[in-house]
Protein backbone atom coordinates (compact mmCIF):
# COMPACT_ATOMS: atom_id res chain seq x y z
CA UNK A 1 0.00 0.00 0.00
CA UNK A 2 1.01 3.55 -0.74
CA UNK A 3 1.04 6.51 1.55
CA UNK A 4 -0.63 7.30 4.81
CA UNK A 5 -3.67 9.56 4.34
CA UNK A 6 -3.52 12.80 6.28
CA UNK A 7 -6.33 15.32 6.07
CA UNK A 8 -4.64 17.59 8.63
CA UNK A 9 -3.25 19.97 6.00
CA UNK A 10 -6.72 20.21 4.43
CA UNK A 11 -8.21 21.29 7.72
CA UNK A 12 -5.37 23.76 8.24
CA UNK A 13 -6.15 25.18 4.78
CA UNK A 14 -9.84 25.59 5.50
CA UNK A 15 -9.77 29.37 5.13
CA UNK A 16 -8.00 29.12 1.75
CA UNK A 17 -10.50 26.55 0.56
CA UNK A 18 -13.37 28.69 1.78
CA UNK A 19 -12.01 31.61 -0.23
CA UNK A 20 -11.69 29.41 -3.30
CA UNK A 21 -15.21 28.18 -2.80
CA UNK A 22 -16.42 31.77 -2.52
CA UNK A 23 -14.70 32.63 -5.79
CA UNK A 24 -16.19 29.59 -7.52
CA UNK A 25 -19.67 30.61 -6.42
CA UNK A 26 -19.03 34.22 -7.38
CA UNK A 27 -17.84 33.34 -10.89
CA UNK A 28 -20.66 30.85 -11.42
CA UNK A 29 -23.47 33.04 -10.16
CA UNK A 30 -22.37 36.25 -11.84
CA UNK A 31 -21.74 34.51 -15.17
CA UNK A 32 -25.03 32.64 -14.94
CA UNK A 33 -27.02 35.76 -14.09
CA UNK A 34 -25.54 37.59 -17.06
CA UNK A 35 -26.03 34.55 -19.30
CA UNK A 36 -29.70 34.23 -18.32
CA UNK A 37 -30.28 37.74 -19.64
CA UNK A 38 -28.04 37.57 -22.70
CA UNK A 39 -29.40 34.12 -23.57
CA UNK A 40 -32.97 35.37 -23.48
CA UNK A 41 -32.10 38.19 -25.87
CA UNK A 42 -30.32 35.83 -28.26
CA UNK A 43 -33.10 33.25 -28.00
CA UNK A 44 -35.72 35.87 -28.86
CA UNK A 45 -33.64 37.15 -31.77
CA UNK A 46 -33.60 33.58 -33.05
CA UNK A 47 -37.37 33.87 -33.43
CA UNK A 48 -37.43 37.26 -35.16
CA UNK A 49 -38.92 37.16 -38.64
CA UNK A 50 -36.35 39.59 -40.09
CA UNK A 51 -33.79 37.21 -41.60
CA UNK A 52 -30.47 39.07 -41.08
CA UNK A 53 -31.12 39.43 -37.35
CA UNK A 54 -32.18 35.84 -37.01
CA UNK A 55 -29.07 34.76 -38.93
CA UNK A 56 -26.78 36.71 -36.61
CA UNK A 57 -28.36 35.08 -33.59
CA UNK A 58 -28.03 31.66 -35.20
CA UNK A 59 -24.37 32.26 -35.99
CA UNK A 60 -23.78 33.35 -32.39
CA UNK A 61 -25.34 30.16 -31.08
CA UNK A 62 -23.59 27.85 -33.53
CA UNK A 63 -20.21 29.50 -33.02
CA UNK A 64 -20.07 29.66 -29.25
CA UNK A 65 -21.77 26.36 -28.65
CA UNK A 66 -19.30 24.61 -30.91
CA UNK A 67 -16.22 26.17 -29.34
CA UNK A 68 -14.52 24.15 -26.57
CA UNK A 69 -14.62 26.11 -23.33
CA UNK A 70 -10.95 25.70 -22.56
CA UNK A 71 -9.95 26.80 -26.05
CA UNK A 72 -12.21 29.84 -25.79
CA UNK A 73 -10.83 30.80 -22.37
CA UNK A 74 -7.25 30.76 -23.57
CA UNK A 75 -8.10 32.39 -26.88
CA UNK A 76 -10.08 35.17 -25.21
CA UNK A 77 -7.55 35.95 -22.50
CA UNK A 78 -4.26 35.52 -24.34
CA UNK A 79 -5.39 36.10 -27.90
CA UNK A 80 -8.30 38.42 -28.46
CA UNK A 81 -7.61 40.84 -25.61
CA UNK A 82 -4.04 41.28 -26.80
CA UNK A 83 -5.04 41.62 -30.43
CA UNK A 84 -7.67 44.24 -29.65
CA UNK A 85 -5.62 45.93 -26.96
CA UNK A 86 -8.29 45.41 -24.30
CA UNK A 87 -7.08 44.80 -20.82
CA UNK A 88 -9.14 42.24 -18.96
CA UNK A 89 -8.30 40.84 -15.56
CA UNK A 90 -8.30 37.03 -15.37
CA UNK A 91 -11.54 37.22 -13.41
CA UNK A 92 -13.23 39.45 -15.99
CA UNK A 93 -12.08 37.21 -18.81
CA UNK A 94 -13.31 34.13 -16.97
CA UNK A 95 -16.77 35.57 -16.36
CA UNK A 96 -17.03 36.91 -19.91
CA UNK A 97 -16.10 33.56 -21.36
CA UNK A 98 -18.48 31.51 -19.23
CA UNK A 99 -21.29 33.99 -19.80
CA UNK A 100 -20.88 34.26 -23.57
CA UNK A 101 -20.83 30.50 -24.02
CA UNK A 102 -23.59 29.75 -21.59
CA UNK A 103 -25.80 32.35 -23.27
CA UNK A 104 -25.54 30.36 -26.50
CA UNK A 105 -26.82 27.23 -24.75
CA UNK A 106 -29.52 29.08 -22.84
CA UNK A 107 -30.70 30.79 -26.04
CA UNK A 108 -31.61 27.38 -27.43
CA UNK A 109 -33.33 26.36 -24.21
CA UNK A 110 -35.39 29.56 -24.18
CA UNK A 111 -36.22 29.21 -27.87
CA UNK A 112 -37.44 25.66 -27.43
CA UNK A 113 -39.57 26.75 -24.47
CA UNK A 114 -41.10 29.67 -26.36
CA UNK A 115 -41.82 27.54 -29.42
CA UNK A 116 -43.54 24.94 -27.25
CA UNK A 117 -46.30 27.40 -26.31
CA UNK A 118 -49.25 26.97 -28.69
CA UNK A 119 -49.97 29.97 -30.89
CA UNK A 120 -53.54 29.95 -29.58
CA UNK A 121 -52.19 31.40 -26.33
CA UNK A 122 -50.88 34.43 -28.19
CA UNK A 123 -54.11 34.66 -30.17
CA UNK A 124 -56.17 34.62 -26.99
CA UNK A 125 -54.02 37.39 -25.51
CA UNK A 126 -54.16 39.53 -28.66
CA UNK A 127 -57.92 38.99 -28.86
CA UNK A 128 -58.26 40.61 -25.45
CA UNK A 129 -56.49 43.68 -26.79
CA UNK A 130 -53.01 43.02 -25.40
CA UNK A 131 -50.14 44.23 -27.55
CA UNK A 132 -47.77 41.63 -29.00
CA UNK A 133 -45.15 42.64 -26.43
CA UNK A 134 -47.62 42.25 -23.55
CA UNK A 135 -48.82 38.94 -24.94
CA UNK A 136 -45.23 37.73 -24.96
CA UNK A 137 -44.32 39.06 -21.53
CA UNK A 138 -47.50 38.13 -19.64
CA UNK A 139 -48.61 34.98 -21.41
CA UNK A 140 -45.91 33.25 -23.46
CA UNK A 141 -42.73 33.90 -21.47
CA UNK A 142 -43.93 32.71 -18.03
CA UNK A 143 -45.09 29.44 -19.56
CA UNK A 144 -41.91 29.08 -21.61
CA UNK A 145 -39.75 29.61 -18.52
CA UNK A 146 -41.66 26.91 -16.71
CA UNK A 147 -40.84 24.50 -19.53
CA UNK A 148 -37.23 25.66 -19.67
CA UNK A 149 -36.65 25.43 -15.91
CA UNK A 150 -35.29 21.85 -15.69
CA UNK A 151 -32.91 22.44 -18.58
CA UNK A 152 -31.73 25.73 -17.07
CA UNK A 153 -31.10 23.97 -13.75
CA UNK A 154 -29.06 21.36 -15.56
CA UNK A 155 -26.99 24.04 -17.26
CA UNK A 156 -26.46 25.84 -13.97
CA UNK A 157 -24.81 22.72 -12.57
CA UNK A 158 -22.76 22.40 -15.75
CA UNK A 159 -21.67 26.00 -15.30
CA UNK A 160 -20.57 25.33 -11.72
CA UNK A 161 -18.37 22.49 -12.84
CA UNK A 162 -17.17 24.39 -15.90
CA UNK A 163 -15.99 27.20 -13.66
CA UNK A 164 -13.10 24.97 -12.58
CA UNK A 165 -11.57 25.57 -16.01
CA UNK A 166 -10.96 29.23 -15.26
CA UNK A 167 -8.22 28.13 -12.85
CA UNK A 168 -6.06 28.05 -15.96
CA UNK A 169 -6.17 31.85 -16.13
CA UNK A 170 -4.97 32.08 -12.55
CA UNK A 171 -8.28 32.84 -10.91
CA UNK A 172 -8.07 31.58 -7.36
CA UNK A 173 -11.21 29.54 -7.33
CA UNK A 174 -11.80 26.19 -5.66
CA UNK A 175 -9.89 24.09 -8.17
CA UNK A 176 -6.81 26.29 -8.31
CA UNK A 177 -6.69 26.76 -4.56
CA UNK A 178 -6.90 23.01 -4.08
CA UNK A 179 -4.14 22.39 -6.57
CA UNK A 180 -1.95 25.05 -5.02
CA UNK A 181 -2.42 23.72 -1.53
CA UNK A 182 -1.94 20.15 -2.75
CA UNK A 183 1.39 21.09 -4.27
CA UNK A 184 2.46 23.00 -1.18
CA UNK A 185 1.83 20.07 1.16
CA UNK A 186 2.40 17.45 -1.50
CA UNK A 187 -0.98 15.97 -0.58
CA UNK A 188 -2.80 15.84 -3.96
CA UNK A 189 -5.20 13.06 -3.03
CA UNK A 190 -6.51 14.70 0.11
CA UNK A 191 -6.96 18.15 -1.37
CA UNK A 192 -8.44 17.06 -4.69
CA UNK A 193 -10.81 14.64 -2.98
CA UNK A 194 -11.98 17.47 -0.79
CA UNK A 195 -12.51 19.66 -3.85
CA UNK A 196 -14.42 16.88 -5.59
CA UNK A 197 -16.70 16.42 -2.61
CA UNK A 198 -17.35 20.15 -2.38
CA UNK A 199 -18.31 20.27 -6.08
CA UNK A 200 -20.67 17.33 -5.67
CA UNK A 201 -22.32 18.81 -2.59
CA UNK A 202 -22.76 22.15 -4.38
CA UNK A 203 -24.27 20.42 -7.41
CA UNK A 204 -26.66 18.49 -5.19
CA UNK A 205 -27.63 21.69 -3.41
CA UNK A 206 -28.33 23.40 -6.74
CA UNK A 207 -30.37 20.46 -7.90
CA UNK A 208 -32.49 20.57 -4.75
CA UNK A 209 -32.93 24.32 -5.10
CA UNK A 210 -34.14 23.97 -8.67
CA UNK A 211 -36.45 21.12 -7.80
CA UNK A 212 -38.00 23.41 -5.19
CA UNK A 213 -38.39 26.27 -7.64
CA UNK A 214 -39.90 23.96 -10.26
CA UNK A 215 -42.44 22.79 -7.78
CA UNK A 216 -43.35 26.35 -6.88
CA UNK A 217 -43.90 27.19 -10.53
CA UNK A 218 -46.06 24.21 -11.25
CA UNK A 219 -49.49 24.93 -12.68
Amino acid at each position, binding site marked *: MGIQLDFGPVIDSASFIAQGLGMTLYVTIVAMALALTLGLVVGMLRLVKFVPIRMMATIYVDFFRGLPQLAFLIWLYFGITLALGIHLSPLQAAIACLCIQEAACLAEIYRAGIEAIPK*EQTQAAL*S*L*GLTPVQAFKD*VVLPQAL*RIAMPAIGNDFIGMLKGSSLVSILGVWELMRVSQGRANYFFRPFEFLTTAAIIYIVLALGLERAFAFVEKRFK*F
Partner: protein
Amino acid sequence: MGQEILRLVDIHKSFGHLHVLKGVNLTVERGEVVVIIGPSGKGKSTLLKCINLIEVPEAGQVVFLGKDYMQNAKQRGVSLRANPDLRFLRTHIGIVFQQFNLFPHKSALHNVMLAPMRVLGMSKQEAKEKSLEALERIGLLDKIDAFPSTLSGGQQQRVAIARALVMQPQLMLFDEVTSALDPELVGEVVEEIERLADSGMTMIVVTHEMGFAKECGDRMIFMDEGVIVEEATPEEMLRDPKEPRTKEFLRRILI
Protein backbone atom coordinates in the same frame (compact mmCIF):
# COMPACT_ATOMS: atom_id res chain seq x y z
CA MET B 1 -82.29 46.73 -33.77
CA GLY B 2 -81.40 48.47 -36.95
CA GLN B 3 -78.02 49.94 -36.14
CA GLU B 4 -75.22 48.22 -38.01
CA ILE B 5 -72.38 47.07 -35.74
CA LEU B 6 -70.31 44.94 -38.09
CA ARG B 7 -70.05 44.66 -41.85
CA LEU B 8 -67.81 42.23 -43.66
CA VAL B 9 -67.37 42.90 -47.36
CA ASP B 10 -65.94 40.34 -49.75
CA ILE B 11 -63.52 38.76 -47.27
CA HIS B 12 -60.86 36.53 -48.79
CA LYS B 13 -58.38 34.50 -46.80
CA SER B 14 -55.91 31.81 -47.84
CA PHE B 15 -53.45 29.65 -45.99
CA GLY B 16 -50.80 28.86 -48.59
CA HIS B 17 -52.64 27.33 -51.51
CA LEU B 18 -55.72 26.68 -49.46
CA HIS B 19 -58.33 29.32 -50.25
CA VAL B 20 -60.41 29.21 -47.07
CA LEU B 21 -62.69 32.24 -47.42
CA LYS B 22 -63.83 33.08 -50.92
CA GLY B 23 -65.67 36.34 -50.63
CA VAL B 24 -67.79 36.42 -47.49
CA ASN B 25 -70.31 39.25 -47.00
CA LEU B 26 -72.05 39.64 -43.70
CA THR B 27 -73.76 42.46 -41.85
CA VAL B 28 -74.67 42.24 -38.18
CA GLU B 29 -76.94 44.68 -36.41
CA ARG B 30 -76.86 45.63 -32.77
CA GLY B 31 -78.64 43.12 -30.59
CA GLU B 32 -78.67 40.43 -33.24
CA VAL B 33 -77.71 36.83 -32.60
CA VAL B 34 -76.28 35.32 -35.76
CA VAL B 35 -75.71 31.59 -35.80
CA ILE B 36 -73.27 30.11 -38.27
CA ILE B 37 -73.43 26.42 -39.11
CA GLY B 38 -71.60 24.32 -41.64
CA PRO B 39 -69.14 21.46 -42.12
CA SER B 40 -65.87 21.49 -40.17
CA GLY B 41 -62.78 22.94 -41.77
CA LYS B 42 -64.67 25.09 -44.22
CA GLY B 43 -63.82 28.50 -42.87
CA LYS B 44 -66.19 29.25 -39.99
CA SER B 45 -63.47 29.66 -37.35
CA THR B 46 -61.26 31.53 -39.78
CA LEU B 47 -64.11 33.93 -40.46
CA LEU B 48 -64.43 34.72 -36.75
CA LYS B 49 -60.68 35.26 -36.44
CA CYS B 50 -60.83 37.60 -39.43
CA ILE B 51 -63.40 39.73 -37.64
CA ASN B 52 -61.02 40.72 -34.85
CA LEU B 53 -58.11 40.51 -37.28
CA ILE B 54 -56.25 37.79 -35.43
CA GLU B 55 -56.09 36.38 -38.92
CA VAL B 56 -55.64 39.07 -41.52
CA PRO B 57 -57.69 38.69 -44.72
CA GLU B 58 -55.95 39.22 -48.06
CA ALA B 59 -58.82 41.26 -49.37
CA GLY B 60 -62.10 42.77 -48.26
CA GLN B 61 -63.35 45.17 -45.64
CA VAL B 62 -63.85 44.67 -41.94
CA VAL B 63 -66.12 47.53 -40.90
CA PHE B 64 -66.75 47.77 -37.16
CA LEU B 65 -68.92 50.62 -35.88
CA GLY B 66 -68.58 52.37 -39.22
CA LYS B 67 -64.82 52.18 -39.51
CA ASP B 68 -63.00 49.97 -41.99
CA TYR B 69 -60.05 48.45 -40.16
CA MET B 70 -58.59 46.90 -43.30
CA GLN B 71 -58.53 50.27 -45.09
CA ASN B 72 -57.12 51.88 -41.99
CA ALA B 73 -54.29 49.39 -41.98
CA LYS B 74 -53.48 49.93 -45.65
CA GLN B 75 -53.41 53.72 -45.29
CA ARG B 76 -51.07 53.59 -42.36
CA GLY B 77 -48.81 51.29 -44.26
CA VAL B 78 -47.99 49.38 -41.14
CA SER B 79 -48.53 45.77 -40.35
CA LEU B 80 -51.88 45.14 -38.74
CA ARG B 81 -50.18 43.70 -35.71
CA ALA B 82 -48.46 46.94 -34.90
CA ASN B 83 -51.50 49.10 -35.56
CA PRO B 84 -52.70 50.66 -32.31
CA ASP B 85 -56.24 51.06 -33.68
CA LEU B 86 -56.52 47.31 -33.59
CA ARG B 87 -56.67 47.57 -29.84
CA PHE B 88 -60.01 49.33 -30.10
CA LEU B 89 -61.35 46.65 -32.39
CA ARG B 90 -60.15 43.78 -30.21
CA THR B 91 -61.15 45.39 -26.95
CA HIS B 92 -64.70 45.86 -28.16
CA ILE B 93 -65.04 42.43 -29.73
CA GLY B 94 -64.87 39.48 -27.36
CA ILE B 95 -64.05 36.01 -28.60
CA VAL B 96 -64.37 32.61 -26.95
CA PHE B 97 -62.56 29.66 -28.49
CA GLN B 98 -63.33 26.01 -28.92
CA GLN B 99 -60.30 24.99 -26.84
CA PHE B 100 -60.91 27.68 -24.14
CA ASN B 101 -57.31 28.94 -24.44
CA LEU B 102 -57.18 30.02 -20.83
CA PHE B 103 -53.72 30.97 -19.61
CA PRO B 104 -52.62 27.85 -17.73
CA HIS B 105 -50.12 29.67 -15.51
CA LYS B 106 -52.75 32.02 -14.09
CA SER B 107 -55.61 31.35 -11.69
CA ALA B 108 -59.18 31.83 -12.88
CA LEU B 109 -59.24 35.28 -11.29
CA HIS B 110 -55.94 36.34 -12.84
CA ASN B 111 -57.02 35.06 -16.25
CA VAL B 112 -59.90 37.50 -16.07
CA MET B 113 -57.90 40.34 -14.48
CA LEU B 114 -55.08 40.45 -17.01
CA ALA B 115 -56.75 42.37 -19.83
CA PRO B 116 -58.51 45.00 -17.67
CA MET B 117 -55.15 45.83 -16.14
CA ARG B 118 -53.02 45.72 -19.25
CA VAL B 119 -55.48 47.01 -21.83
CA LEU B 120 -57.90 49.24 -19.95
CA GLY B 121 -55.26 50.44 -17.54
CA MET B 122 -57.29 49.60 -14.43
CA SER B 123 -55.58 49.43 -11.07
CA LYS B 124 -55.16 45.99 -9.60
CA GLN B 125 -57.91 46.63 -7.10
CA GLU B 126 -60.37 47.88 -9.70
CA ALA B 127 -59.57 45.02 -12.08
CA LYS B 128 -60.09 42.56 -9.26
CA GLU B 129 -63.49 43.97 -8.41
CA LYS B 130 -64.65 43.88 -12.02
CA SER B 131 -63.29 40.37 -12.47
CA LEU B 132 -64.99 39.11 -9.34
CA GLU B 133 -68.26 40.55 -10.63
CA ALA B 134 -67.77 38.78 -13.94
CA LEU B 135 -66.95 35.49 -12.23
CA GLU B 136 -69.90 35.87 -9.91
CA ARG B 137 -72.23 36.28 -12.87
CA ILE B 138 -71.10 32.92 -14.27
CA GLY B 139 -71.32 31.33 -10.84
CA LEU B 140 -67.66 30.51 -10.29
CA LEU B 141 -66.85 32.64 -7.26
CA ASP B 142 -65.75 29.53 -5.39
CA LYS B 143 -63.15 28.77 -8.07
CA ILE B 144 -61.35 32.09 -8.37
CA ASP B 145 -58.03 30.73 -7.09
CA ALA B 146 -58.19 27.53 -9.10
CA PHE B 147 -55.82 27.01 -11.99
CA PRO B 148 -57.34 26.02 -15.33
CA SER B 149 -55.89 22.51 -15.15
CA THR B 150 -57.98 21.79 -12.05
CA LEU B 151 -61.25 23.01 -13.58
CA SER B 152 -63.66 20.98 -15.65
CA GLY B 153 -64.02 21.81 -19.34
CA GLY B 154 -67.32 23.53 -18.71
CA GLN B 155 -65.87 25.61 -15.90
CA GLN B 156 -62.87 26.54 -18.03
CA GLN B 157 -65.12 27.65 -20.83
CA ARG B 158 -67.21 29.74 -18.44
CA VAL B 159 -64.05 31.43 -17.15
CA ALA B 160 -63.14 32.11 -20.78
CA ILE B 161 -66.54 33.74 -21.24
CA ALA B 162 -66.03 35.85 -18.11
CA ARG B 163 -62.58 36.82 -19.38
CA ALA B 164 -64.13 38.16 -22.58
CA LEU B 165 -67.11 39.81 -20.89
CA VAL B 166 -65.09 41.72 -18.33
CA MET B 167 -63.91 43.91 -21.21
CA GLN B 168 -67.54 44.90 -21.83
CA PRO B 169 -67.44 44.08 -25.53
CA GLN B 170 -70.09 45.29 -27.95
CA LEU B 171 -69.90 42.12 -30.00
CA MET B 172 -69.19 38.57 -28.86
CA LEU B 173 -67.86 35.81 -31.08
CA PHE B 174 -68.29 32.18 -30.04
CA ASP B 175 -66.28 29.62 -31.95
CA GLU B 176 -67.79 26.16 -31.38
CA VAL B 177 -67.44 26.72 -27.67
CA THR B 178 -69.14 23.47 -26.70
CA SER B 179 -67.45 21.14 -29.21
CA ALA B 180 -64.56 20.24 -26.92
CA LEU B 181 -66.79 19.56 -23.90
CA ASP B 182 -68.05 16.31 -22.51
CA PRO B 183 -71.76 16.00 -23.31
CA GLU B 184 -72.88 16.53 -19.72
CA LEU B 185 -70.96 19.82 -19.54
CA VAL B 186 -72.48 21.38 -22.65
CA GLY B 187 -75.59 22.55 -20.83
CA GLU B 188 -73.93 24.91 -18.37
CA VAL B 189 -72.04 26.68 -21.15
CA VAL B 190 -75.03 26.94 -23.47
CA GLU B 191 -77.06 28.36 -20.58
CA GLU B 192 -74.44 31.04 -20.10
CA ILE B 193 -74.62 32.03 -23.77
CA GLU B 194 -78.40 32.00 -23.74
CA ARG B 195 -78.45 34.30 -20.76
CA LEU B 196 -76.10 36.61 -22.60
CA ALA B 197 -78.31 36.57 -25.69
CA ASP B 198 -81.31 37.43 -23.52
CA SER B 199 -79.42 40.40 -22.10
CA GLY B 200 -79.29 41.88 -25.58
CA MET B 201 -75.65 41.16 -26.42
CA THR B 202 -74.84 41.15 -30.12
CA MET B 203 -73.19 37.91 -31.07
CA ILE B 204 -72.00 35.63 -33.79
CA VAL B 205 -72.12 32.02 -32.72
CA VAL B 206 -70.54 29.18 -34.65
CA THR B 207 -72.20 26.08 -33.26
CA HIS B 208 -73.69 22.67 -33.82
CA GLU B 209 -76.17 23.12 -30.97
CA MET B 210 -79.38 23.34 -32.94
CA GLY B 211 -81.48 23.70 -29.80
CA PHE B 212 -79.59 26.84 -28.91
CA ALA B 213 -79.75 28.11 -32.49
CA LYS B 214 -83.49 27.74 -32.57
CA GLU B 215 -83.98 29.26 -29.15
CA CYS B 216 -81.75 32.31 -29.46
CA GLY B 217 -80.77 32.79 -33.08
CA ASP B 218 -82.27 35.68 -35.00
CA ARG B 219 -80.60 34.59 -38.18
CA MET B 220 -78.93 31.40 -39.32
CA ILE B 221 -76.16 31.20 -41.87
CA PHE B 222 -74.95 28.07 -43.59
CA MET B 223 -71.31 28.24 -44.70
CA ASP B 224 -69.55 25.76 -46.94
CA GLU B 225 -66.44 25.91 -49.13
CA GLY B 226 -65.59 29.41 -47.95
CA VAL B 227 -68.84 31.13 -48.89
CA ILE B 228 -72.22 31.79 -47.33
CA VAL B 229 -74.52 29.31 -49.03
CA GLU B 230 -77.81 30.13 -47.39
CA GLU B 231 -79.25 32.56 -44.90
CA ALA B 232 -82.62 32.42 -43.13
CA THR B 233 -84.23 32.45 -39.71
CA PRO B 234 -83.31 29.31 -37.75
CA GLU B 235 -86.88 27.97 -37.88
CA GLU B 236 -87.02 28.42 -41.62
CA MET B 237 -83.68 26.88 -42.32
CA LEU B 238 -84.19 23.91 -40.04
CA ARG B 239 -87.69 23.29 -41.36
CA ASP B 240 -87.23 24.04 -45.01
CA PRO B 241 -83.63 24.46 -46.27
CA LYS B 242 -83.48 25.70 -49.85
CA GLU B 243 -80.02 24.74 -51.03
CA PRO B 244 -79.10 21.09 -51.64
CA ARG B 245 -75.86 21.47 -49.67
CA THR B 246 -77.76 22.83 -46.67
CA LYS B 247 -80.25 20.00 -46.87
CA GLU B 248 -77.46 17.44 -47.04
CA PHE B 249 -75.65 18.97 -44.07
CA LEU B 250 -78.74 19.29 -41.89
CA ARG B 251 -79.82 15.77 -42.75
CA ARG B 252 -76.49 14.46 -41.51
CA ILE B 253 -76.34 16.38 -38.23
CA LEU B 254 -79.98 16.14 -37.27
CA ILE B 255 -80.12 12.34 -37.33
